[in-house]
């Protein structure tokens, strides 16, 4: 039975007995962590076939995406794919599906992902990400929720073309 059931069944005076007999035990993975043996995901070797992804981020807080030119990035040897929001306009989210995987038609914050590059090494992916040319039409950023409503924004997930 689980601990809370044991407490309920045992009653208060037995609760004291259970807590008094509890021992301090070392953390189960402390040994691996102090010896450097612990394998975090970045420590794992997946072999020479592993591909690497890097993202392209918006430098502006608000703007329309006029055009994304991926040709220079795709031409770089070792680049397997470049994807943008137009390639997959599905929206994601936990309680509210309000996020595009990559920005679909506009960017809404500095750093929003607008494209992703997949390549055979981290360095090639980084260089290719720098070669992706995004043309923005900057818009006035709105940082205030009341101004946002006044400008026509609503609290639901923004569809294409919406604020």
């Amino acid at each position: 039975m689980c601990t809370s059931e044991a407490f309920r069944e045992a009653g208060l005076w037995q609760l004291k007995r259970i807590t008094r007999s509890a021992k301090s035990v070392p953390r189960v993975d402390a040994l691996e962590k102090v010896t450097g043996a612990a394998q975090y995901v970045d420590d794992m070797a997946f072999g020479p076939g592993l591909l690497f992804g890097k993202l392209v981020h918006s430098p502006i807080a608000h703007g329309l995406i006029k055009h994304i030119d991926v040709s220079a990035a795709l031409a770089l040897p070792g680049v397997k794919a470049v994807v943008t929001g137009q390639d997959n306009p599905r929206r994601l989210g936990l309680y509210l599906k309000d996020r595009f995987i990559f920005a679909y038609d506009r960017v809404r914050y500095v750093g929003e992902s607008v494209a992703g590059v997949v390549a055979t090494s981290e360095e090639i992916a980084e260089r290719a990400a720098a070669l992706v040319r995004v043309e923005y039409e900057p818009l006035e950023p709105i940082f205030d929720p009341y101004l946002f409503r006044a400008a026509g924004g609503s609290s639901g997930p923004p569809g294409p073309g919406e604020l």
Partner: protein
Amino acid sequence: MLHEISLTVNGDLHTLVVRSHHTLLQVLREQLGITSPKRGCENGECGACTVLMDGLPVNSCLVLAPEADGTTIETAEGLSAGGELHPLQEAFIQHNAVQCGFCTPGMLMSSKALLDRLPHPTEDEIRDALVGNLCRCTGYLRIVEAIQDVTARGEEGKPK
């Protein structure tokens, strides 16, 4: 550009070819499979990549690979000798100074460098020595206590 370098890591001599713009952190992790130094910020700010180079703690993410030529490198993997844990490693376990453990290798190397230099540091000296190692989990207190325990043990030869 390629360079051939020789360096001793945890007692083993390695001769290898490195790229001039690669870092010691990359060489250790990707060429030598020594993964205890971590990629935290790769910017010299978090200390998760801390290793000892000729006895001094360095951010291996800021050391260019060719700079490591001819040096002696120590990492957490090399702390336990002959199957026995280093007193710092034992103390970190006993004092619960490890949670996610990502900062731990860096903390261990910075602490070792401190105790090699100052066998009986004050709490301020300990905290000062760890100023380059960030920890998001523990709040640092138990790490400091673990180091103080090792210091105290050093004096009497017995665990506190």
